[in-house]
């Protein structure tokens, strides 16, 4: 089994379980006071994945605002505003869910478990597909 295919607790003397060794401020220690310090590379990868999710959610918000900005001359104004609002709300929800995902993965790594499965990407893809199909239908109807 490859070493990188499983979580390896960071093998240093200070890596013991308990609140005293958990990272961050008090509220973070409360949330992360389990298990042992994971390999820092996994923690950093988790952090970068969180940031990628945040950028995805920001992209959705930008798309929503963009649609709302350029909709003034569009015949399907109501639908466009609805799509814009849905995208913005989805972006906000995704931004919040990203943090909980980061927390879950961090806790799993501290406990030496595998990464918990996430359905967020599937739901996101489905939501975008539905919005795209509805938008296409409206564009074809209006034109």
């Amino acid at each position, binding site marked *: 089994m490859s070493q*990188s295919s499983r979580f390896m607790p960071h093998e240093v003397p*200070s890596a013991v379980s308990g609140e005293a060794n958990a990272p961050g401020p008090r*509220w*973070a220690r409360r949330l992360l006071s389990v298990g042992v310090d994971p390999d*820092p*590379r996994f923690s*950093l990868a988790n952090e970068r994945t969180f*940031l990628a999710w945040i950028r995805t959610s920001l992209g959705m918000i930008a798309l929503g605002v963009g649609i709302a900005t350029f909709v003034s001359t569009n015949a399907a104004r109501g639908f466009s505003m609805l799509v814009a609002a849905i995208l913005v709300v989805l*972006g906000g929800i995704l931004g919040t869910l990203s943090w909980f995902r980061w927390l879950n993965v961090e806790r799993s790594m501290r406990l030496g478990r595998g990464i918990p499965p996430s359905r967020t990407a599937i739901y996101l893809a489905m939501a975008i597909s539905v919005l795209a199909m509805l938008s296409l239908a409206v564009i074809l109807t209006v034109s």
Partner: protein
Amino acid sequence: MNTEPDLPSDMSTGLQAERTSLAWSRTLVVVAAIFGIISVHALVTTQPWPLTLATTATAAAVLTGSTPIARRRLDIIKRDLHRHTAVRAATPTVAVSGLTSLASILALITIIAQSH
């Protein structure tokens, strides 16, 4: 057959700190851009001036702070790696997640106000 190379025995972190710091830079620039877009949208659709001012100020603050924040993140990660302690990310992740939610709320307010 497993073709994945084995990791170095000293658990070297290589350029991980730098990559993470750059990811923070990118994200903060995008955050600033989003607040800028919301600000322009609020201006174009003649929203109340406090909303425009708040979004513009947030965009400027995030853009100005993006480089120092990313630099500080790099220093903290390097320090944690050097001390062999867990990498601390709870506070910055909460902050950027909160900023994203704030951007979403402000964008929704401008869209709702525009549609009325």
